[in-house]
């Protein structure tokens, strides 16, 4: 039932390994579907080409959203949850048959929803705001997928309980498992809310329920919609710590601090779904301010704690390895040739500087007025879920291929280059969209010239430049994603087998030597970087509030 990994020493339950592989494969399939749609959408919004007609544009926006934000991410996270609750804890998988049942539901859901969308019966966007109504099978597909994912989450907790009872880990979970536990708790919130909103909506689409109040729908839907993205944040940060350990033998410089940050996530991060309703009628300002601030920004504090704790985990280890010169030798002499390492560092930078800053600022009650439903919003979330989560998942896969699939990486030279290409592409795409949105360009909109309408409107001529930049970024990111998918598929199915530690192309570092007692700062380089981040954040903050103050008065 077990094999002992000859590279890491972990006890791997073979039944768990099969499930991890299956979910990972479908994650990659979902990403392929998502990215093919993405490039078609890029060339449609880039109006000199205007590739798709209106109908297919809106159809593929729905398709892309579902495959990218839900299927790709959750399949990968299920693989991660299984890995974190069995391999890391050296324990057995509690109920593999249920795992396969959950997997089958998720696959059925993916196929059903995607087919219905492509048949044109669900042109409602991922959000499917009522009274827009899709074919019942669309909602059923998502429900099946969600039930399958919920089973996986329950199995995760089941595995944890067995491991705790059988004492396969010490008193406290390893940090990476702790972070994945955070992700699993948020997943319970997400999926339970999903049931609350999708089951009645499904019944309404069948004609069994008369009416779904649109404001109630949106409130509840975002309890699923945004919380699903917060699962990503927790999983992503856990993987950052994991790569720190694997690549330089580092860990959090203070476990109590890092774990407390995860606890803050658990308690407060899901309140932020409110930032989707800031410019909506109905809910009060008190509700908006309390919830969008994640309760006085305590969950943002958690992110800022990780913003220090993650880089300092690298820096502290590197300094103990001897790279102690100046402020940044720890970084310049880091294993940049390790594509998992470079992916994570780029993901940290992108998530922090692009996604995180815009997220907090756009999510403030009043500044939301100047960005709601503009294309700045997808610009923001490509800075979080694409440059952050997706690049992180891509990066850790470079370790999964040899360790879980036991294959060598084919095209390793390409693997080294791919994270950079992806980062630059998405950074260009994301920043361009943010700028376009701040100039008023709408999201989910087929024609910038409003043809067919009684009037027309001309955007600031600068938009042409940013549309072109967005298109270039999109092309670059598309190519980088295809390269990644090719590397993964060819390696997993055709790559030479890994027979032992000598076959590892990415180094696995031993734990860094113990710290000698020292006064002063443990990670001065990280402190400088976080202060720079703070300055950038404050600049964007005041810029946006200044723009808000220049608009008409409203209350």
């Amino acid at each position, binding site marked *: 039932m077990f094999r002992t990994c000859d590279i890491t020493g972990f006890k791997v339950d073979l039944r768990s390994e099969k499930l991890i592989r299956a979910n990972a494969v479908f994650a990659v399939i979902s990403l392929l579907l998502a990215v093919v749609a993405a490039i078609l959408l890029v060339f449609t919004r880039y109006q000199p080409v205007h590739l798709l007609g209106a109908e297919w544009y809106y159809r593929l926006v729905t398709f892309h959203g579902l495959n990218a934000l839900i299927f790709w991410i959750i399949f990968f996270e299920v693989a991660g949850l299984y890995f974190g609750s069995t391999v890391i804890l050296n324990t057995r998988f509690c109920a593999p048959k249920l795992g396969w049942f959950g997997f089958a539901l998720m696959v059925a859901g993916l196929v059903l929803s995607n087919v219905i969308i492509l048949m044109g019966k669900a042109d409602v966007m991922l959000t499917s705001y009522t009274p827009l109504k899709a074919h019942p099978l669309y909602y059923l597909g998502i429900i099946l997928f969600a039930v399958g994912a919920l089973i996986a989450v329950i199995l995760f907790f089941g595995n944890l309980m067995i491991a705790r009872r059988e004492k396969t880990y010490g008193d406290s979970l390893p940090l990476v498992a702790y972070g994945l536990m955070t992700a699993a708790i948020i997943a319970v919130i997400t999926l339970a*809310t999903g049931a609350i909103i999708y089951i009645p909506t499904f019944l309404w689409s069948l004609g069994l329920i008369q009416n779904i*109040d649109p404001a109630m729908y949106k409130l509840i839907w975002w309890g699923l919609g945004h919380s699903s993205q917060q699962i990503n944040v927790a999983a992503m940060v856990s993987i950052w710590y994991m790569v720190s350990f694997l690549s330089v033998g580092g860990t959090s410089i203070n476990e109590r601090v890092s774990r407390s940050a995860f606890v803050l996530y658990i308690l407060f991060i899901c309140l932020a779904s409110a930032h989707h309703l800031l410019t909506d009628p109905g809910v009060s300002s008190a509700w908006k301010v309390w919830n969008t601030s994640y309760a006085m920004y305590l969950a943002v504090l958690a992110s800022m704690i990780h913003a220090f704790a993650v880089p300092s985990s690298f820096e502290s280890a590197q300094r103990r390895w001897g790279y102690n010169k100046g402020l940044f030798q720890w970084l310049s002499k880091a294993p940049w040739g390790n594509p998992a390492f470079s992916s994570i560092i780029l993901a940290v930078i992108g998530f922090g500087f692009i996604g995180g800053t815009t997220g907090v600022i756009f999510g403030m009650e009043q500044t939301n007025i100047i960005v709601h439903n503009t294309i700045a919003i997808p610009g923001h979330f490509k800075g979080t879920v694409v440059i952050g989560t997706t690049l992180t998942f891509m990066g850790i896969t470079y370790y999964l291929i040899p360790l879980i699939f036991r294959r060598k990486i084919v095209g390793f030279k390409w693997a080294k280059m791919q994270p950079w290409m992806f980062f630059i592409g998405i950074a260009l795409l994301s920043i361009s969209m943010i700028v376009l949105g701040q100039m008023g360009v709408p999201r989910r909109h087929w024609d910038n010239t409003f043809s067919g309408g009684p009037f027309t409107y001309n955007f600031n001529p600068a938009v042409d430049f940013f549309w072109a930049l967005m298109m270039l970024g999109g092309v670059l990111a598309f190519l980088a994603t295809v390269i990644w998918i090719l590397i993964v598929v060819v390696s997993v199915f055709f790559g030479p087998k890994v027979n032992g530690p000598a076959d590892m192309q990415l180094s696995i570092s031993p734990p860094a030597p113990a710290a000698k007692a020292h006064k002063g700062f443990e990670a001065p380089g990280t402190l400088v970087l976080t202060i720079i981040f703070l300055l950038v954040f404050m600049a964007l903050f005041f810029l946006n509030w200044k723009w808000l103050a220049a608009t008409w008065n409203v209350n």
Partner: protein
Amino acid sequence: MENEQQPESKKVPFYRMIMDDFMLLLFLGVTIYAVFYLLWGVMELSNLPSIPEEIKNNLIK
């Protein structure tokens, strides 16, 4: 030693106990979200007034 404590029952700090108890954390996370985001939000949406008569009467007799 005077006390009768078993070797296993060391005193665990309260906060550490909370941090390690993932079922408690699950309960707290779900409850805080359900109360502040869902319940409060649904309550507000359910308690909105209708358009005041005087505004309506200005337009429709």
